[in-house]
């Protein structure tokens, strides 16, 4: 039942609004609204009940194992939420003077310093509100860099085919042409293709390492040399930083600009789709272009750097400074873990992924890159199974829901057919992984003995399989009281 279906005309819920309409109203008649918007008229209790019950219809990290590859679904410590929501933090206006926010700004400054260290970059801006915006910032800076040098013929960004969709989308949004290069059979970027692709038109290369195939790009140093020699810059998509946190620094790999998804590696919650935060780090060459605001610490006082301090900055990407509350959560998370905790993340994320890979391989699942170590994630391909039985990666995914596990990422990266990208993250225990292996084994058996069971999953969820073809064909995007 939709909230609107609980609504009754003229039901009021006065506790949440002034008791009456005020007498004074100077809005000119021609600018007034004439009919009330379609907001529900529901009691406070029924609102609480409705949304509490709705919430129960979600899988989440707080309730299920969620091995969604590329998304790093790890435990979101409850303390990060509680402390970021202290009333003083919540009530502070973004334009309140800096001296009324020294506590908050101290956290932001320290977070910048920590992120610099973790990534090996020269400077960090916290402004970006998600990975894709981080990319936009990065590529915009690359453009600004070339422009500042009068190097205006660089119109292309090179991107491996395994890259996340945001990479090519960002490059185009920044006015670049995308040159896609293939992956070799071991999951590395095809070096020859890269060499062939670079040219005086190359503005830069966007690389994810470990890649979305779950493997560490071994030849990254050579790639860096090739691209830099061609005059391009190197962009690091840090969505997979979790796999190497503290172990390997993008700065050491030769990257000029990076973003890191705090809503992955730094455990800020995904919130059913966001908000994220994706600070951007740069090497010296891009430092002048970093977006503002940035927190500076001068004579014991924290303040925002603005256009005046950074005249070459590409400017602002958000009305204020980005997703402050998310950054606070990440700050609290790093302070809880400390340096030693950073290393452990990489180690145990890698251990969990390789263990799960080993166990699934033993069950007979086909591993897409069998000769490689898993980084924090790895790929199973259902190609053979599908050819034999008709059971697809999506079928298996739905069947996993029935067994109380969220599905891995399916059909991404696009280059591996019928793929399941599996990322267990470091916060899952061996027992949970073992239970997942049991579920995968059960499904494998079902595929043998009762494939229809798998193909028509889910069976135990509140709904059967959702018809998304219909959703796209018969668009129904807003509720209509007329029905």
């Amino acid at each position, binding site marked *: 039942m939709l909230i609107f279906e609980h609504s009754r005309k003229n039901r009021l819920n006065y506790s949440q609004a002034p008791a009456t309409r005020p007498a004074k109203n100077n809005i000119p008649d021609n600018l007034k609204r004439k009919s009330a918007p379609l907001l529900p008229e529901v009691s406070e209790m029924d609102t609480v009940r409705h949304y509490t019950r709705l919430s129960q219809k979600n899988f989440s990290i707080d309730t299920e194992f969620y091995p969604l590859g590329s998304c790093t679904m790890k435990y979101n410590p409850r303390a990060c939420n509680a402390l970021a929501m202290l009333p003083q933090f919540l009530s502070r206006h973004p334009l309140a003077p800096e001296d009324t926010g020294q506590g908050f700004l101290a956290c932001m400054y320290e977070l910048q310093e920590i992120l610099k260290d973790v990534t090996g970059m020269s400077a960090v801006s916290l402004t970006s509100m998600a990975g894709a915006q981080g990319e936009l910032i990065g590529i915009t800076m690359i453009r600004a860099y070339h422009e500042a040098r009068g190097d205006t013929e660089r119109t292309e960004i090179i991107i491996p085919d395994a890259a996340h969709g945001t990479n090519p989308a960002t490059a185009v949004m920044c006015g670049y042409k995308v040159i896609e290069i293939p992956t070799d059979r071991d999951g590395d970027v095809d070096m020859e293709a890269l060499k062939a692709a670079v040219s005086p038109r190359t503005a830069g290369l966007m690389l994810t390492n470990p890649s979305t195939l779950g493997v560490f790009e071994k030849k990254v140093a050579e790639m860096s040399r090739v691209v830099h020699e061609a005059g391009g810059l190197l962009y690091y998509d840090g969505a997979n930083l979790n796999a190497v946190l503290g172990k390997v620094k993008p700065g050491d790999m030769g990257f000029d600009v990076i973003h890191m998804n705090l809503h992955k590696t730094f455990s800020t919650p995904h919130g*059913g789709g966001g908000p994220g935060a994706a600070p951007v780090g740069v090497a010296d060459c891009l430092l002048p272009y970093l977006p503002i605001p940035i927190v500076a610490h001068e004579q014991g006082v924290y303040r925002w750097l603005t256009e005046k301090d950074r005249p070459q900055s590409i400017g602002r990407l958000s*009305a204020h400074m980005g997703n402050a509350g998310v950054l606070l959560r990440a700050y609290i998370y790093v302070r809880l873990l400390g340096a030693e905790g950073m290393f452990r993340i990489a180690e145990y994320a890698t251990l*969990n992924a390789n263990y799960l890979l080993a166990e699934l391989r033993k069950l007979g699942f086909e591993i897409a890159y069998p000769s490689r170590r898993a980084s924090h994630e790895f790929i199973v391909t259902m190609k053979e199974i599908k050819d034999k039985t008709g059971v697809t990666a999506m079928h298996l995914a739905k069947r996993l829901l029935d067994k109380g596990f969220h599905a891995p990422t399916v059909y991404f990266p696009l280059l591996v057919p019928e793929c399941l990208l599996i990322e267990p993250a470091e916060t899952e225990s061996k027992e949970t992984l073992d239970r997942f292996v049991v579920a995968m084994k059960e499904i494998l058996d079902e595929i043998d003995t009762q494939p229809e069971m798998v193909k028509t999953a889910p069976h135990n969820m509140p709904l059967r399989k959702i018809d998304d073809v219909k959703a796209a064909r018969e668009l129904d995007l807003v509720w209509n009281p007329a029905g």
Partner: protein
Amino acid sequence: MPFIPHTEEDVTEMLASIGATSIDELFDEIPAELKNGKLTQVPTGMSEMEISRLMYERAQKDGFYLSFIGAGAYEHHIPAAVWQITTRGEFYSSYTPYQAEASQGTLQLLYEYQTMMASLAGMDVSNASLYDGASALAEAALMAVRQHKSSRRILVPQTVHPIYRSVVRTIVRNQAIEVVEVPYDPATGQVSIDQLDQFAQEEFAALIIPQPNFFGVLEQVDTLADWAHDKQSLAIAVVNPTALAMLKPPGEWGRQGADIAVGEGQPLGIPLSSGGPYFGFMACKQELVRQMPGRIIGRTTDLEGKEGFALTLQAREQHIRRSKATSNICTNQGLMVTAATIYMSLLGPEGLYRVAAQSHANTLALVEQLETLPGVKKAFHSPFFHEAVLQLSVPADEVLNKLKAQGVLGGVLLENYYPDLKNTLLVCATETKIAEDLDKYTEMLRQILKA
């Protein structure tokens, strides 16, 4: 080990299964020269007790102020239920609802949100959020250019929030889209038709129309929207969602209504929290839906015909269309929309109206009181919503500092954004202010101006 559940035995067993002798060995594909393993700027870990103490101390340091600052972020009462429900693990710790059957909670909520937001804006459809108001405006500009096809220029009045203008510039510049600014009428604080008419002969993909504008002033939206449509430009509304409860919605502006409405969703139950996370909303006409960036949820059915919800129109998005997507946006501000949806449900149409009307009335009262002080006058003679610009006869920054010393944040210094508007303050009094607050401000200002 905080948050790492492995016992030593587990590690041994797992390595045995993998066939490795140490965790380190699992990193053997990484070239040795790349391995770093040193962190000098990351302090050692703290217990939850220690970090709690640190954060309480920092919060106490920042304290509480009686604030009359608005300028794009507004203090409103947020019902306790909003965040108690929003931070339930099932909403807080779930991912984007890719697996529809395991995400009906989030999906249905977003569908409800789309309905509410579209209706509030008087538009046909809404997406499920963008990053914030400023970036939503940039996306609207890009969308207009895609739709318009022939012009790559956008007309933006200077009454639009200065930072929004700056964000739009940063984002659209890459695509060689030109942002042309329209000055405002210094008497009314509005975009005047006279000013606009200088651009009558040029082609623009869109005109951006703020309501209320950055000065809190109400624009003549009907005239502006018609002006844009008359020259085949799109009309993009940038609006305050609280104000929409009182003001004519963009969908009804002029003869055909604005084409796209965007804005900052923060006033709908999102705490100020130093600037974020907030969320950008975007609603548009049906014909533009395939140009709209961001997630969109559709109502559909399951195998057995039961009502259900799913992400839809994904063919616009980067994960399917990659370089041909309408935008690169992926993660959005889902949790904030969760809060906003619960907020709007708790308030209902009448509640939201009263919040708006009380904010309007409080600002009227504040301005009236302050205007009685010698040396204070309204900068513009136009109707306003819940913000207004005051012209002081003395240095405004010093006034603000003196107020601050007494625990009052007296508004925003406009000359930071409009160098011409010397010694002017943008003040705001939402429904959270009571008569004593207005009196306190007035009395303090009286004393300061006297001294």
